[in-house]
Structures are given as C-alpha cells and as structure tokens.
C-alpha cells in the first residue's frame, strides 16, 4: 500500500510538470490555432533563468588566504560572493540559498517579454499557414534556442538546489495514519505539486472570472464574431501567448531542484506534453491538466519493478501506448471538443 501511495505522489509530481506545459500548449492552440513546438524551449528558458540568477548571485571577488593551500600547493584563493559582502554573510547566503523562489519573481516579466517577442516576431506571420509550416518553424526555433543555451551554458546539467529549508523528506505516512517513516516524500516535490495547483487554479480563475478571460473564451469559440463586436481580439491573444510562456517558464524554474537543467530538458518534456495534449483533447484546458496527471501517474506505476518484471520495457512506452488506445477509441481525446482539429 505504501508503495502505491508513493507512486501516486510521484505521478502527481511528474504530472504537475506535464500539466503545466500542456496547459500552455493548449492555451496557444486554443486561442491562436498555432501548434507551438517551441513550447518546451520556454520551459527550458525558465529553468535557465533560475540557473542564471544563481550564477549572478554567486558572482564573487577573490582574496588570497595565505594560511591554506589549493590543489597545486599555492596559497588558496577564496571567493566571497558580492551579495554576502553587501548584505552580510548570513543575509547574503540566505539570498543565494533562496535563488530558485526568487527566480520565480524574475521569470514572470522575462517570460512575458520572451512570449510577446516570440509571437510578434515570428509566430504571427504563420497564423494563416498550414499546421505543418507552424510545426516546422517553431521546431526550428526550439532548436535555435536550445543551441544558444548550449553555447552559453555548456552541455552538462547544472545543479540548482532548493533552499535548505526544503531539503529532506516529509513523513507523509505519519500524516495519514501509517507507521512513521514508511512514506517519506521530498519537501520540494510537494512544493512543486502545490505550486502547480496554484498556477493551474490561477489560469482557470483568470479565464473563468475576468472579463478579459470571458472575451478570450468567446474568441476561442468564435474569433470572427468577437472581432465584429469591435474587440481587439488579437491583442488579447498576444497576452494569452505571454501567459502561456509565463506558465511554461515558471514550471521550468521550479523544476530545477528536481532535475538539474540542461539544454535539452525542454525537448524531453515537449514530446511528452504533446502526447498529454492529444490524450486530453486538443483545445481542452481541463483535458490537458487531467491527462497530465493521469499519464504522470501511469508512468510512475509502469516504472515499478513488479510491473516491469511482468511486461519488460513498459515504463518506456506506457505513455505512447495510452495515446494509441485513446486515439483509437476516442479520436478527439478524453475531453476534446467536437470540431477542433476536424475542420
């Protein structure tokens, strides 16, 4: 039982990342009708905002400590970060320690700018082009962004730890009446799950309860009619692109302590997220979120040794297998709307 609960927690955790990326993908597809293969790159850029901030906060000046020697036997150069010098050792190290949560605040305006630049600079020219053209150009953009990150940060994963306060595991078992220490789950993964729920809730609330969201939803249903009412729907759609970029970016920032960022992390998530969107139903926001969590949980269970022993390799193909079954039995996906992708 403990193992099952742990795998559910794992699935929710993985599913959070899938759902956040799939949510943005669906928002862009639903509003702009664009299949954005560069969306995974936005997740990667978010992760590298966290990496960059940590590097900036760690910028140091060097002093020589004559009492110690380095690996070559020379007097040791000791690095002191400027933030520790300016704010004092305790405050300075706390700022560095909390670099990932701080990066969340930084990522919001940066990702919004990146999103608007991407939409105005490139994607708007492809609205009336076939989906195949959109896929090609956005995939090309993803590769360019990936190579730029590789050129600046190298090919190796860059560890970006969570604040010390969130290092370690929470005794989840004791909370729900099991023996102590039987179900331990890392604090930061719980934080990630909670964070993703807040973001998903905020996006849904924004679309459901604001006038802006109402207009966007109307535009998603019938863009021309909304335009005839004198509403500048294009401007709103640009803002939706920026929101989708922010969601992907924040998902990337917060994921860095779970998986050290590297230049191809976005591509790894993108492929899975597209499967999530297709399974959930193209254009369906609740479908994207539900399918994200569903596939995350299924993938976790498929990685259990008891399952792998019965069906070797199932952990590698489970997501695609589910996609095939869903598409065969329900071509619109689990919660897809009639007419979307069928015109």
């Amino acid at each position, binding site marked *: 039982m403990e193992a099952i609960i742990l795998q559910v927690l794992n699935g929710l955790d993985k599913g959070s990342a899938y759902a956040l990326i799939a949510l943005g993908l669906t928002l862009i597809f639903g509003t702009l009708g664009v299949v954005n293969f560069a969306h995974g790159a936005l997740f990667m850029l978010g992760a590298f905002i966290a990496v960059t901030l940590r590097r900036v906060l760690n910028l140091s000046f060097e002093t020589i400590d004559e009492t110690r020697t380095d690996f070559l036997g020379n007097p040791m150069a000791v690095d002191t970060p400027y933030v520790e010098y300016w704010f004092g050792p305790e405050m300075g190290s706390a700022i560095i320690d909390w670099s990932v949560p701080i990066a969340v605040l930084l990522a919001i305006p940066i990702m919004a700018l990146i999103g608007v630049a991407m939409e105005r600079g490139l994607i708007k020219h492809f609205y009336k082009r076939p989906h195949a053209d959109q896929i090609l150009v956005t995939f090309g953009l993803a590769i360019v962004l990936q190579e730029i990150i590789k050129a600046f940060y190298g090919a190796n994963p860059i560890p970006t730890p969570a604040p010390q306060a969130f290092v370690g595991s929470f005794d989840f078992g004791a909370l729900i009446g099991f023996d102590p220490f039987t179900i*331990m789950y890392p604090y930061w*993964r719980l934080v990630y799950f909670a964070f993703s729920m807040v973001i998903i809730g905020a996006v849904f609330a924004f679309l459901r309860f604001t006038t802006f969201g109402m207009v966007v939803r109307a535009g998603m249903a019938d863009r021309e009619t909304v335009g005839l009412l004198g509403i500048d729907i294009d401007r709103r759609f640009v803002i939706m692109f920026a929101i989708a970029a922010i969601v992907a970016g924040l998902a990337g920032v917060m994921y860095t302590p779970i998986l050290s960022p590297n230049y191809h992390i976005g591509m790894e998530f993108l492929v899975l997220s597209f499967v999530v969107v297709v399974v959930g139903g193209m254009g369906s926001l609740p479908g994207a979120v539900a399918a994200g969590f569903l596939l995350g949980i299924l993938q976790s269970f498929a990685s259990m040794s008891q399952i792998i022993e019965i069906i070797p390799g199932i952990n590698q193909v489970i997501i695609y297998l589910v996609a095939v079954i869903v598409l065969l039995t329900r071509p619109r996906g689990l919660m897809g709307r009639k007419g979307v992708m069928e015109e």
Partner: protein
Amino acid sequence: MSKGNFTRRNMLKTGVATGAALAVPTIFTGQVWADGHTGFTNAPGPDSVTLGFNVPQTGAYADEGADELRAFQLAVQHLNGEGDGGMMNTFSSDALDGTGILGRRVEYVTGDTQTASDAARSSARSMIERDGAIMISGGSSSGVAVAVQSLCQDAGIIFMAGLTHANDTTGKDMRANGFRHFFNTEMTGRALAPILEGLYGTDRKVYHLTADYNWGWSQERSIRAYTEGMGWETVNNVLTPVGAGDFSSYLTPVANSGADVLILNHYGGDMVNSLTQAVQFGLRDMQANGKNFEIVVPLFSRLMARGAGSAIANIHGSTNWHWSLQDEGSQAFTRSFGTEYGFPPSQAAHTCYVQTLLYADAVVRGGSFNPCSVDEALADFEFDGMGNGPTLYRADDHQCFKDVLVVRGKENPENEYDLLEIVEVTPRDAVTYPPDHPDFVEGQLGACNPGA
C-alpha cells in the same frame, strides 16, 4: 643506306622505360605507395601524424568528455615539446623526447560520440577515412568503447580506450587492436567488497538500480558476485534507462523493499541524478532491518561528486585515479593540468592522457606506426611513473593491471575540488584476476590487423 639502331621496337622499349622512370617519384610519394610499402592504414607522411579523439561532448557523460578532451590536448602539447612535459618527465620509459612521434608533429581531430554507439562509430569512421587518423582514443561509455574498438580492429587502427569500465571491453569483446588502461568492474568488486564488509558487516540486504546497458550489467554482475560472496543478499535489481533524468519512480519502491543497502550502478549525469534524488527521498536518514540505510556508488569520480553536491557525504565507491595521489607522476600531471586549466584533472582525463603517451611511446619503442608493431610494444609492457604505481599491460587481454583506489565522499569539503578522500589503495596483486576468469574467458584477441 645505313641501317640505324633506332627501330620502332627500340623506341617503344625506351618510351616505356622512360615513362616508368618518370612515374617512380609520383608513385613513391603517393598514398598508394605508402600503404602498399608500409602495409597499414593511414600511414603518416614525413611531417605529421593525426590522432583521433572521440569523446562525448553531449549526453549524460558530457562532463567526462570535456575533461578527456582537455587531457588529450595537453598530451599533444607535451608530445610536441610544448608546456612542462607533464608525466613524460616521470614515465619510466624514456623513449619520448618532445619531438612528436617518430619525428612527426602530432596533430589531432575530435569527434562527438554523443554517448551513443552509432554516433561514436560514425564519428570514428569519419576520423579514420576523412582525416586519416592513425589511432582513436576516448570513450566514456563501455557500449561506445566496444563499438569503436570493433570498428578500429576492422579498419586496422589502434584503439586506446578512454573511460570504459565494463568487463566486456577486455573480456568478451576484446580485440587485438584495442587497449585499456582504465580498470574494470571485476577490479572494482575485488577492491570495494572488503571495505564494504568492514564498514557494514556481512548481514545486509541489497537493492540495485542498474543502468540498462553493457556497463551497468557488468557492474551489477561483478559487485553482486563479491557482495553475495561475503554474505549480502540481493533483494532486487531494477534496470533503468540511460539518461532517465528523474529516477523517483525507481527509488520510491526501495524504502519498503526490505533492503538496507542501495547500490547505484549508474555513472555520469545519471549517478548525479539518482544519488541526489535518493538523498532527497530520505533514504540516507532511514533505518531498515535495525541498521542505518546505506548507499554505495561502485564507480565514483570527482566530476560526479561535484554534480551531486552534499549528497556524496560518506558514500563509498572505487575510482581509477585521483589527483590527490602523492606519487611523482600523479603530482606532475595534476600540476600540469591544473596550471593549464585552473582545476584538477578527473580520472577520465588521467586515463586519456596516459593512453596517449603510452601509444606514442609504443610507436617510438617499436620504431613504426604499424598497429602490429604497437601491439608488440605494448604486450606485457611494464611501466611506472604514470600514477597508480607499477603497471602491467597484460598481453593476454590488453588490460592494464595497477593499484585501485577506494574513495569516500567528504563530509565537509574545503573547496569544490576537495570532494573525495582515498580510503584505501588496493594493491595490484589484490585486483589481478587470471585471464581465464569466467567473466573474461569468452573473449578472443585474435590477430592484430594493420589494415590497408
């Protein structure tokens, strides 16, 4: 009318002879003659010789690959008489004199293996066919090493393996044209097991997570044989895909499996992720079967330790070499590398540097670039001054035998390089196995292939 000697027959004879005489210099300086005369692939010209360094510049082992490349570049500098000479000054053989190899300046080309056998073979083939590389070195994955070694055997090129730790490289898949300086999983088992027994006793239950490829299987088989030999029970072995990234689904069943030891048969970025995540999941704080839960990483490296950060504290494993070794050769290399790049070399860098010098030395001692001459020069070659004490390149399997280090992650490292401490230097005799060991006996070196 006089009858002249200049007949049509004589004119034809003279023409053929003159033509042949005029053609001789062209043939003699051309590649066709060189291959025909010397009888081996990519025979170098009189001025330079090209070596091919095939390393992972992308993928899970990119960290090692970058360090390997630095070491290769340093070795080339030293061979060409630039820099401080590094280990050439401490090497027991004095054949190398800083004038290149057999008077030819050393040049090199590089390739990206992408940590994938197909990409590695394609890159090695390009270096051999397009760039004329006469020796290929590098690696950082046993799957890649085995694939490239086989290609080099067929092409008539020497392969001086870089970082490859699976038994198969000099076991089942050994080749006459291939040589390995790095240790292997059998040696890890022999060196590590007695230390683990001393630390954790003989009554333990083990859960293995194993990288699902050539090296992972070899590592699991060897460490399992030695831990079971001392009484440890294997509870489970789960194969994980290379580059999985998030290992949480594989780690969560460990806590309730009845195991009290987790052995991570992972390397590079995979080990960084699996170890970090194992610590995040609280495995190190756990108690099982009335004992503290322990994690072991059989193949350790400083680069991995750096990636895993504080998670490495008190984790034990084995390593081929460490910059803190105090012998003259190790210190010379560390000084040379550290001065050039500003940080100490990794074990991957060390093995690649040593392999390059050993190749050059074998060519000079044998007096030829012919792979069969190199083969002969390295067979049962005994040397010293390259770290790890006296070393033997065994003729039976082209495997080096030398001391193996058991290391432990430091709890309070003084700086970012001071991450591992040497717990034990296991002497060469203790890690030497017979050529007919069951894990190795299947292999056949065959004959050296000079190619062309």
